[in-house]
């Protein structure tokens, strides 16, 4: 069943959308993995994680392993629903405009 389209301002910011895109495909991802995926500094990622965490969209887990703290992130059920709804809303906008092949770069209006 496709999720209901619902635009979400919190998810829509580019970095946060990409954080959600990574986390939606996995159960959890290390902080370093998400940082590498976005190509941003730790501080930038931390800021976006805090916003998503305060919105109840992601969970932050910290585990100590060999005296090093490993931080892993995962989407909550609310976060997954918000992301799915947001993607559906984006697809709806693109679809309504008659875009084709929306998953391949910038679309071009069909007519």
């Amino acid at each position: 069943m496709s999720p209901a389209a619902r635009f979400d301002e919190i998810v829509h910011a580019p970095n946060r959308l990409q954080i959600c895109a990574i986390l939606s495909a996995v159960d959890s991802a290390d902080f370093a993995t998400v940082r590498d995926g976005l190509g941003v500094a730790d501080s930038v990622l931390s800021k976006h994680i805090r916003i998503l965490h305060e919105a109840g969209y992601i969970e932050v887990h910290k585990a100590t392993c060999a005296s090093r703290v490993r931080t892993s992130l995962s989407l909550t059920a609310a976060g997954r629903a918000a992301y799915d709804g947001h993607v559906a809303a984006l697809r709806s906008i693109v679809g309504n405009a008659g875009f084709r092949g929306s998953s391949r770069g910038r679309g071009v209006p069909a007519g």
Partner: protein
Amino acid sequence: MPRLSIMASEEDWAGAPAEIAPEEAASAISAIGGRRSWLADRIIAPGWYHLSLGLLAGGAIAEAEMHSWVLFAWSVAAYTAGCSALMWVNQRRAGVTMKYFDACTRAVFAGHVLTLSTLIAVACWLEVDRGTRGAFLAAGVLAVPLALAFGRCTDNLLRARLLAGR
């Protein structure tokens, strides 16, 4: 051209407009696809991973050629420890936890186990019943390319699943 009005957020896509244009939505979807592709590349096991698994399995099977139960027990222990270590290293390398198995990848894994079991059974029959020397060695050598082939097949299925966003 349809536009969806929203409140401007702090980092909107194209200079903080208060509306989302289709081009901007398409760009956002494209960015999602890009992250999915990056994630697939990261999660897919490197070439040495399947080769190492194949060498471990092949070595354990080929060792049966020695006809020593003690060596066989050690080889099984080495195989188990080696597989566990490889999986741990690969998981740390990728930096994610996820459900690797769905219906397709589970079927490929079952096919791999079944093929290896058949290979071992044939080697046992040839070596023990027919007295053919070198059957376990041959089975061990065959296990390596089989592990590579089944591993690549699993990787391709996993990549397709990640790119499809499932």
